């Protein structure tokens, strides 16, 4: 029993990592006032490009870089549509997301069902051998540790830096930001690209580290869950980390339950992450005052200095 528990708690870091990375990118994007619904598509593109790169070069670092680049390229399309051509953010996000899903299926077809080598875990000397805590905290792969650092940096960036303040001002009120001499469109553009890069990294991690294989639809709604996570976290990076870890653990329940051997249909267990997303979203959103207080004021609204 305690083995199963350690398995879930330790594995949750890895399963949480793609959710967290993608959601962190979306969080920064939303703090600038842009609602990007294409996370699922960007993750898929990142996943397939990273998988192909790792298959041919054997380098996970290169794979992740390639995945980030590909997803950033896709997010550029979204940025141009919404920021330059002032298209509706929801519709553009769906369009670009579907495009990403389609392209990833097309590019990945020759690799459908293929597997690749996973990366080594880092065993922190001595600490990794401590019972229970060791395998949970000190025997993860490099990306897991990196994502924690990224999360902390994002929190520091938003709270403590001038650039972070600029980003928040643009997200609250781009018109005021403009009159202060800031450049809202440029800030938002960069935020969208960052969101793309993070989604790409998340996808790359999913297809080359977490489950080193490619199959069409392998992102399986994690991009949408990432979008929901941002609301759970009420747009705060530190809370996001907690939320992502919770969802990582929840998505492992399936395996744990199978291991214990309860006779629950696997389809029912597969629903757990989606059902909990809906339930938690409803609970968090029902506190309307809190959502109003935390949500960026201009979220989802187009802005053009000319108008």
């Amino acid at each position: 029993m305690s083995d199963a528990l350690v398995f879930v708690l330790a594995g949750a870091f890895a399963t949480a990592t793609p959710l967290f990375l993608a959601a962190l990118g979306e969080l920064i994007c939303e703090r600038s006032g842009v609602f990007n619904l294409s996370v699922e598509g960007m993750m898929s593109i990142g996943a397939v490009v990273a998988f192909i790169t790792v298959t041919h070069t054997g380098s996970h670092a290169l794979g992740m870089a390639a995945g980030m680049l590909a997803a950033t390229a896709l997010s550029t399309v979204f940025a141009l549509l919404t920021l330059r051509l002032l298209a509706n953010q929801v519709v553009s996000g769906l369009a670009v997301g579907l495009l990403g899903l389609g392209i990833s299926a097309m590019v990945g077809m020759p690799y459908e069902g293929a597997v690749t080598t996973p990366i080594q875990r880092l065993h922190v000397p001595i600490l990794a051998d401590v019972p229970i805590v060791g395998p949970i905290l000190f025997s993860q792969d490099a990306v897991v540790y990196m994502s924690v650092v990224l999360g902390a940096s994002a929190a520091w960036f938003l709270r403590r830096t001038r650039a972070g303040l600029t980003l928040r001002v643009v997200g609250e009120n781009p018109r005021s930001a403009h009159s202060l001499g800031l450049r809202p469109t440029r800030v938002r553009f960069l935020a969208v690209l960052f969101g793309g890069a993070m989604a790409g990294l998340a996808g790359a991690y999913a297809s080359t580290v977490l489950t080193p294989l490619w199959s069409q639809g392998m992102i399986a709604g994690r991009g949408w869950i990432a979008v929901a996570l941002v609301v759970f976290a009420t747009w705060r990076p530190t809370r996001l980390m907690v939320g992502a870890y919770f969802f990582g653990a929840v998505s492992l329940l399936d395996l744990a339950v199978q291991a214990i051997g309860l006779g629950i249909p696997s389809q029912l267990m597969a629903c757990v992450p989606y059902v909990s997303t809906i339930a938690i979203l409803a609970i968090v959103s029902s506190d309307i005052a809190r959502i109003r207080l935390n949500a960026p004021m201009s979220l989802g609204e187009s802005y053009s200095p000319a108008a």
Partner: protein
Amino acid sequence: MIPLTVEVTRRKSPSRWGMVIVPLLTVVLAVASAAVMFSAYGASPGAVLFGFFVEPLSSAYNLGEVAIKAGPLILIAQGLAIGFRAKVWNVGAEGQLIVGAVAATVVPVYLPDSDSALLLPAMIVLAAAAGMLWAAIAALLRTRFNASEIIVTLMLTEIARQLLYYAVMGPLRDPGGFSFPQSVPFQDAALFPTFGETRANVSILICVAATVSAWIFVTRSFAGFRLLIGGVSPDAARYAGFSQTQAVWVSLLLGGAAAGLAGVGEIAGPLGKLQPILTPGYGYAAIIVAFLGALNPIAIVLAGLFMAVIYVGGDNALATGQIPASAPAVLQSLLLVYYLACAFFVNNDIRVGFVRRVGAQA
């Protein structure tokens, strides 16, 4: 730097000239992209373009195939467009379609010997009700708990998919179907009659009825007007006392019913049974159709037909073995991307002029 200034001002109403040009330009760009994409796969662009865009219209059988695909696309898009006008984002039509199909399957599976004329109507009613029920979950959570209908409808789609897997592997599985996870093939009384030699069937009438009703609802009814105002100007709607809660419910229920009906159209139409994969993503493609049709009931019909041609063309091209199966999906999403980009030129006045720089000799 290019010595040009570009001045963009938002138009009060879309330019009429542009409303014709934009769809044309969108189609031209999509066809051009298709040509580039297919050349990259080593196919001869001319032949594949012919296969994609002309062949589907070349025979009665192929036209029937186009009708089979256009039917559900247009039907769902009409339902979704009503909500989209009110800025209610039901993006889970795929799930509502699946739930409708599963619910309707219960009738022929549990009454396998019946040839009652009421069988099909019962399936239709069940499918619409199930689609509405599935969408109602999102409406309830949105109106009671303020939960984003976008995320809820997406999540409900994933749950619906698991429900479908459970149904075809468990209670609705054909015990004599070897190891295939699917229901029994439906008896004739549970199938829509087909037209002549084609596979196209009577369910297309549901789509026609939906289109006519949508047109009346949007252009002639006060309820449709209230929804539109709620979408265009929430403040004005609130001032006029139009209820946002009601808009959410009406939008989601109509969208859910349309998607559920599309579901029964599939299983009682070309499929003839319930199976793990019901559609090539009609629920998502219908979102593209709705916007490509500018949320206008008549234009949605044209957009749906064009998207259906791409599906059938894709199937034809797939048979020749040169084009990947996901090519139609890429092309369809490109259509929406191009459309959104082109729409900028309808909604805005763009003036390009030369920069007159003062003292710019440096």
